[in-house]
């Protein structure tokens, strides 16, 4: 009797274990090809989020039998905090998008894969803006490809200009400064000629330095040029206008500068194509114009988000295929038309399909004059937040003269250069 009971319990136990095993142990792969899953992390959380989502869906549809891309989208600040730690422990995504300035850090840490093979088979190096292409190459190898590309232009409020008796945007630096004074007034309802942000922003002050022939650092990154006479001259002229004529609020973050322009409290702003949709929806009567030309000739700032591949990704070929597909003309045209960004290809400026969004061609035409800020410098973040921004702010708040502040900043920056 005891033996029968034991056998019955034993049988039930064996059955339970067998069922559990069948459920928990995955089936062996069959002879047919299996789907390759790619993970893609990016920070496209703003108005361009639906555009990127559609792009990824299109890729999955086109490659439904072999490759499937899943996105993880988060704010850029969170992405940069999470990405490095994830790569360091081997848990990073196959493909990631981040701003170009971070590339040297990741390359030096040995976390991302060179993609020279992609440039040999599919990615057209000749079509990438030259300054961007130079920044993607480190130590003789390419480590990324463009995800998007942007240039900055001068946004100007046509209504505020007309009220001040001005009919068009300034074309020279002297006109820009004169117009900024004319457009500024204090009192109960203050208005500013221009909204100049100095932190947490796409950099604006470097453009003002470049306009005058000044600069931040030498081309070979060996020496800071913050204390160069033309840099000091440029910053001094704008600092005087801010202190004496209140042409701009001080201490603005980028989002605050955007609010001033969008709230029609500032008549001008130097900004990128991402602002066009917001300002259009706010029914601001505005247009964009090339950054006024100074003694150094036409110049503006460029910015790019790039795609990189995890060095330890088990799906390198699939990841390269995704990156190459992203940079093809139809995809670049789609991103441009939906976002207003110029295409990250110089061979599309005469593409008639891009005429549907008038801002695209305007921003694209600035590419030949556009320069990257602190690109290629491993310590760019520390230089920008701990050296340059405090220097500019100390000038804006009259804590130091431009010459003294910039000389101190140059010394600090030289200590951080390679």
């Amino acid at each position, binding site marked *: 009797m005891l033996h029968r009971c034991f056998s019955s319990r034993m049988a039930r136990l064996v059955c339970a274990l067998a069922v559990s095993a069948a459920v928990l142990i995955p089936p062996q792969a069959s002879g047919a090809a299996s789907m390759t899953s790619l993970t893609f992390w990016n920070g496209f959380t703003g108005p361009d989020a639906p555009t990127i989502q559609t792009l990824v869906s299109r890729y999955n549809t086109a490659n439904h039998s072999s490759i499937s891309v899943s996105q993880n989208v988060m704010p850029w600040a969170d992405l940069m905090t999470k990405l490095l730690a994830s790569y360091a422990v081997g848990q990073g995504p196959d493909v990631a998008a981040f701003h170009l300035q971070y590339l040297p850090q990741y390359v030096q*840490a040995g976390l991302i894969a060179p993609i020279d093979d992609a440039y040999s088979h599919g990615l057209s190096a000749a079509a990438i803006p030259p300054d961007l292409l130079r920044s993607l190459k480190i130590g003789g190898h390419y480590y990324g490809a463009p995800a998007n590309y942007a240039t900055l232009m001068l946004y100007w409020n046509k209504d505020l200009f007309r009220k001040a008796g001005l009919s068009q945007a300034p074309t020279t630096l002297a006109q820009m400064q004169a117009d900024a004074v004319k457009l500024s007034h204090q009192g109960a*309802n203050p208005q500013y000629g221009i909204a100049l942000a100095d932190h947490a922003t796409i950099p604006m002050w470097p453009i003002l330095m470049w306009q005058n022939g000044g600069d931040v650092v030498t081309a070979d990154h060996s020496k800071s040029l913050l204390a160069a006479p033309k840099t000091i001259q440029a910053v001094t002229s704008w600092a005087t206008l801010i202190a004496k004529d209140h042409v701009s609020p*001080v*201490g603005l973050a980028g989002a605050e500068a955007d609010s001033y322009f969008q709230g029609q409290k500032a008549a001008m702003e130097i900004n990128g194509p991402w602002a066009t949709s917001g300002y259009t929806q706010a029914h601001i009567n505005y247009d964009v114009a090339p950054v006024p030309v100074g003694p150094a000739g036409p110049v503006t700032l460029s910015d790019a988000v790039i795609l990189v591949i995890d060095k330890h990704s088990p799906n390198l070929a699939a990841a390269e295929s995704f990156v190459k597909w992203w940079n093809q003309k139809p995809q670049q045209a789609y991103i441009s038309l939906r976002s207003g960004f110029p295409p990250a290809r110089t061979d599309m400026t005469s593409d008639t399909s891009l005429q549907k969004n008038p801002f695209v061609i305007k921003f694209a035409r600035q590419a030949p004059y556009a320069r990257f800020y602190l690109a290629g410098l491993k310590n760019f*973040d520390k230089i920008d*937040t701990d050296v340059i921004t405090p220097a500019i*702010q*100390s000038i804006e*708040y009259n804590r130091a003269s431009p010459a003294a502040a910039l000389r101190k900043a140059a010394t600090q920056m030289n200590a951080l250069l390679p």
Partner: protein
Amino acid sequence: MAMPIAHASVSTAARRRGSLRPHGRARAILASYLFMLPSLLVIGVFMFWPILQIVWFSLHQWSFIATDHPYVGADNYRQLANDSRFWGDLHNTLLFTVGVVPASVLLPLPVAVALNRPLRGRAFFRAAYFLPAVSSYAVMAIVWSLLLQPDIGLLSRYLQLLHFPVADWLHDPSWALPAIMLVGIWKTIGFNMVILLTGIQGIPETYYEAAQVDGASTVARFFRITLPLLRPTLLFVTVTSMIASFQIFDPVFVMTGGGPLFSTETLVTYIYHEGFQLFDTGYASTIACILFLIMLVLTAVQLQVFRFQEED
């Protein structure tokens, strides 16, 4: 011969007091530790181990980006001693604490006393005061940023209507930290009020009745009965408010980012900047160790000042 009853009682009592044999005592102690083990594991993994780790990191040149982490001894601490930005941030943190803690402990006290009385609408006022405590700090910081805007902010508008001067609160190095302190006080008053209210409600009514019989005034009852018996609660809110003030991060990060000109940067925002923006984990850990030591000393001092006892 029968044992004397007293002696028998003593023997029984001695056994009842648990004069266990050594083997039984050991089992009882082991059982106690086994019951504590889950909590000790959680505290060990999530509290003590990270503390030991940051001490370890602080003795190395440690970065996520680097592949090797050389031992540097006290170099990080020497660098910190000569770091003017650290001393500035410590000054800001102390200033914030000195400004916020007394206000957030003393201001809720009369409110708690008032809300302990049978007032009409008492439940509404209790909820209204407690609302900031349950609101997201980061979200409220965004709201306050808009309220404090000089051109379009509501607070600035009302001040202008009352002919008070209006400053660019968050962009003026002289006003940015006081503005954030105001937000800090606003955020903690409600929570401390609830804690103090609970403490007041725990004071037996008999003391007040006896004092009333003896002819003590309301003020005398407050200072002679309420305050002394509220000592453990006051100690609690003071210590927790101080710890929260030293760890202030959300409003600084959201409202000013530590600016303008580092006038609002605190130790924790500096730790975040070094550790998560510049990825210098070693240096960030060094600052964290110093912050930990400062808070440890200050907490010990407070416990001494409040004459902390075990039963508290």
